[in-house]
């Protein structure tokens, strides 16, 4: 029981953490060139302040990364065709 949980824990870290780093880096680069005001204006979002602009974009990028990482892990662990679905083989280790 505990074994599985620790694998899950690592999976969670593998999803959340790299996407966090990449989101931070890409927002840094993005905002060096684009003012969040302009960006929010274009998107038609009433951000209220620049800080919200930064935050919304960062969280959005993070979410994108999370989805990507999750998808990658999901593909990685989908069993091959023909594998017994009721008794899946040993989960790939994350």
């Amino acid at each position, binding site marked *: 029981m*505990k*074994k599985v*949980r*620790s*694998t899950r824990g*690592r999976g969670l*870290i593998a999803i959340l*953490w790299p996407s966090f*780093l990449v989101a931070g880096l890409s927002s840094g*680069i993005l*905002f*060096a*060139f684009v*003012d969040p005001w302009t960006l929010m204006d274009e998107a038609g979002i009433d951000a209220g*302040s*620049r*800080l*919200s602009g*930064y*935050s919304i974009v960062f969280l959005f990028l993070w979410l994108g990364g999370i989805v990507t990482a999750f998808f990658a892990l999901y593909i990685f662990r989908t069993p091959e065709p023909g594998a017994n679905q009721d008794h899946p083989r*040993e989960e790939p*280790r994350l």
Partner: protein
Amino acid sequence: MEGSTTPLQQELYEKRQTIHPRQVTGTFATLRVAAVLVLLGLYYIVPWIPWDGRQAVLFDMPARKFYIFGLVLWPQDFIFLAGLLIVAALSLFFFTAIAGRLWCGYACPQTVWTEVFMWIERRIEGDRNQRIKLDKRPMDAHKFRLRFTKHGIWILFSLWTGYTFVGYFTPILELGSKILTFSTGPWETFWVLFYAFATYGNAGWLREQVCIYMCPYARFQSAMFDRNTLIISYDERRGEPRGGRRRSDDPEKLGLGSCIDCTLCVQVCPTGIDIRDGLQYQCIGCAACVDVCDQVMDKMSYPKGLIRYTTENALESGTTRLVRPRVIIYGVILLALVGALVYGMLNRAPVELDIIRDRNVLYRVTDKGLVENVYTLKILNKHHEAHRFRVEVEGLPGVYVNADTDREIGSGEVAEITTSVQIDPVDLKRPSTELRFRVVAEDDPLVVNEDEARFLKPL
């Protein structure tokens, strides 16, 4: 798959067990405490330092300006920030090649904050053995009180850390008064709590797992290692065969090495490994095992240094080469980059100039028969003083410039200046001519920048 766990699963399983490092004292422990005090002291104090009527170090995201003491960086100076980060990364490479994971053991925020959290934990719950006992004990009033106090203090400390962190990005005094009146903006609140939570989680709960599972540096640092890199190592030749004995025994007679197998080096290790098994990637080079082993050697009246800072080469042949191709290459690249960065900083343009052509009207012929083009000059004054700017145009003789430059542009201000340029068509040989625009402060010829734009004439 019962009974046939792979080594990796086994490892995962074991790593989940909480590690309770025993407290260490000694040279390196003292050094680390000093590092913690200096680094955290800086972290918590720096945002409170005033400078010229503002916060000395402020990454003012709302205003899109970075202040670092006398230096002001704009989004346009992003390249310097990127350069700074690259220099920081390269220094880490350079440093790692020479001194191994010294960074991990003394300077990494993870280590530094964990050290504080463990100190708090020790003050409340006691040292290793008491904590292990407490862990096993069923929850009762006593245990609850200890746990409650510990987490309470951890959380308060984390909140203060989060507040300080956000204080680097928005003026800390203002933020403080907003917090006291419960009027912080939703995002400010979010980031304070986010950073507090990250601190609490990483330093309180995850600890060595951050180093083992999350840290990218821990994974690639071995690529910078060679046989001359400083590592912490157990001197196997001297220590083995290990074994218990009395102080008065002569190890030689018993056929034993210097290791008395007290397992103290394992008990103090924050990542829970046994250094005697050889160099392992989990070892963060904290030297806790060095300190404790030296004390044991002292007690046994053996020479110190059974576990010590050394290099693979030194262990084998007794010599270490400090200067080697890897070190030279990292060093040269680093020097070149730092040089370029300093040069670039010193020669940073004090004004930014962006020229936008009027897209609707390409050209116009005036009553006097001159060809006119209109441009919008976007001028950002990065100088620390306000200036009035003059626009000059070069590239052709007989150019008439008309720019509405009667206004001062304040420090940090962007102004759009409509500039019309008129040229006699006889001077225009080609349908499109390159012109050089210069904006220069009227009272300071060094505050200047140039850019090019095309001038079009009727075909």
